[in-house]
């Protein structure tokens, strides 16, 4: 059995890679996928803690995180589709109408 | 430790052997059976040394040789890696599902009790649904990698159909899970060995006298769920009447129009393997799996009191044979269905999945819950 720290460091690394994706990529769908990656890193951390502390609450929270992530992915993609219809582009840089 | 791994390897090999052989034989049954249904002769030209074997040589020797020696091409603008990956995913997910389907009760060799199931997971049937949901990727990737509008349309239709009917399939099984109280397929198969009269409480005397002598198979306890599951499973395998994704007369060949040779053979074999898997699931959930009616671990115990004792190996052999026969029956039933009914239009398929199967499955769950509580 590996020590808990290894799982936590792995979760942190995956989270950071997701952050790169959200900050840097100029394709809305890839940004959404990076957000999913971040959510999964958090799930991994929860499950690792649940195992090492012997409590089921971590896994129940992961269940809810998955449901919320599903809802968020659905709405995010619907927004992407409606934005694409108007702007014909998936580049976040081009969606600047609300910028002052 | 090594012996345990060896036993699992042997079981996995046996299951794969059975599934792949059955998939091959199903190809022959399909061609000859369809010929019988349509009052024609079917394929009988290829022969070895004058022996044509009712089309066996044609389907089992000539066809695979033809497929394997064809040129393997990838469409010019298509994605080469994904084009090769798609049929692998389709075949892999179809075969791997069989790991949790029990093909026998137990086999006692000396001191070792071997559970005749490749992997006894505590999540049992959820594993089947999870792998089934991964099966959608074979279609989606194959359609996308072909760089072809017809292919893309067929793939999108196919994956939408598959994910719709996954929901109905999962919900229709919930009734069985409530009755047997477990997710593990081996426990569900074992639970179907009791007689109905042993499952009912004393208050249901009327039911006990009329149907109490039947074994507690899923088909007797959940007939509506069986119909729903059968429909959903046929829709999942994209067979007629649900084969718009590969509609032969409408979309050329749907999502595998750009495939030929070995890759098409893999899609083809994957489809037959899915038929076998669907048949295996139907027998395990609704028809007792490996159960022979009234056969317990030591012999026959008939409800009218007579007992016939049998040695352990005979019992195990009978149970494995029963499982195989039931699976073959359901495969034949699906092939019969294919050549008997016309195909649904796509909007009819979607309407059936969402507006008819889903409410019926929910109704089944509610009625099952009420009956279970009333009978306690």
């Amino acid at each position: 059995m590996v020590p808990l720290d290894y799982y936590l460091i792995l979760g942190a690394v995956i989270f950071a890679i997701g952050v790169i994706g959200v900050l840097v990529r100029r394709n809305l769908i890839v940004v959404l996928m990076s957000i999913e990656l971040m959510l999964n890193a958090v799930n991994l951390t929860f499950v690792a803690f649940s195992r090492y502390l012997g409590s089921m609450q971590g896994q129940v929270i992961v269940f809810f995180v998955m449901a919320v992530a599903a809802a968020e992915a659905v709405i995010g993609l619907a927004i992407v589709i409606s934005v694409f219809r108007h702007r014909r582009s998936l580049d976040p840089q081009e969606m600047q109408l609300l910028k002052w | 430790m090594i012996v345990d791994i060896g036993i699992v390897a042997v079981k996995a090999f046996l299951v794969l052997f059975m599934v792949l052989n059955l998939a091959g034989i199903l190809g022959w049954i399909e061609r000859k059976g369809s010929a019988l249904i349509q009052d024609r002769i079917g394929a009988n030209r290829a022969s070895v040394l004058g022996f044509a074997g009712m089309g066996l040589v044609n389907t089992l020797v000539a066809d695979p040789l033809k497929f394997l020696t064809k040129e393997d091409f990838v469409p010019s603008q298509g994605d080469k890696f994904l084009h090769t990956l798609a049929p692998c995913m389709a075949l892999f997910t179809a075969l791997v599902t069989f790991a949790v389907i029990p093909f026998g009760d137990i086999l006692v060799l000396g001191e070792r009790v071997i559970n005749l199931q490749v992997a006894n997971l505590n999540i049992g049937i959820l594993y089947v649904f999870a792998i089934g949901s991964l099966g959608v990727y074979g279609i989606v990737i194959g359609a996308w990698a072909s760089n072809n509008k017809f292919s893309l349309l067929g793939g999108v239709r196919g994956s939408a159909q598959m994910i719709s009917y996954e929901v109905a399939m999962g919900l229709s099984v919930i009734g069985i899970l409530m009755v047997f109280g477990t997710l593990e397929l081996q426990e569900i198969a074992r639970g179907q060995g009791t007689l109905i009269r042993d499952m009912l409480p004393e208050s249901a005397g009327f039911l006990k006298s009329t149907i109490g002598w039947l074994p507690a198979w899923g088909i007797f306890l959940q007939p509506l769920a069986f119909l729903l599951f059968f429909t959903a499973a046929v829709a999942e395998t994209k067979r007629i009447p649900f084969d718009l994704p590969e509609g032969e007369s409408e979309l050329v060949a749907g999502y595998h129009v750009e495939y030929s040779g070995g890759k098409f053979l893999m899609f083809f074999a994957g489809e037959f393997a899915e038929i076998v898997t669907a048949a295996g699931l139907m027998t395990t959930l609704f028809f007792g799996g490996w159960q022979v009616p009234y056969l317990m671990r030591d012999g026959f115990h008939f409800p009218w009191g007579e007992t016939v004792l049998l040695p352990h190996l005979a019992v195990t052999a009978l149970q494995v044979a029963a499982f195989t026969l039931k699976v073959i029956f359901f495969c034949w039933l699906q092939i019969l269905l294919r050549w008997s009914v016309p195909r649904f239009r796509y909007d009819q398929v979607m309407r059936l999945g969402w507006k008819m199967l889903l409410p019926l499955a929910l109704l089944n769950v509610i009625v099952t819950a009420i009956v279970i509580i009333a009978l306690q």
Partner: protein
Amino acid sequence: MDASAILFYVISALLVLASLMVVFLRNVVHCALALVVALFLIAILFVMLHAPMVGVLQVLVYAGAIMVLFLFVIMFLNPTASEPRPKLWWGFGSLAALLLAASLAALLSNGGAPADPVAATEIFGSPETLAKSLFTDFVLPFEITSVLLLVAIIGAVVLAKREP
């Protein structure tokens, strides 16, 4: 160095590789498929952590449904314009993420976390235990989640409708 530790190292290396592929590949479909692989590997880690129910739900819901939805949208929108990749952005972004990873790792490595896991009973992480927790202690969030999913469905249908 027992088998489970070796498995962990292999899977975590593959997971980091898959996540990097999600973020760095040019073709969006390849990114989506790399994410599917990453989700599947995380499900394997869940099963290793004695959470089989959550692991199979991860494959069923995340890898099997949400990613199919992503692939649908990618295939429908079929974005052809290739995205620009200014080097300054990538440099600063990667630096920020590296700082984040380093600080998280440093913070998490010396907490009071137990080094060895509590002995796991047979039913830890099984469907029964999860369901028992879910329907007794967490029944209110469960019901609210179902309303949330309903709201998400309605919102998605309204947002993505074509203007007549």
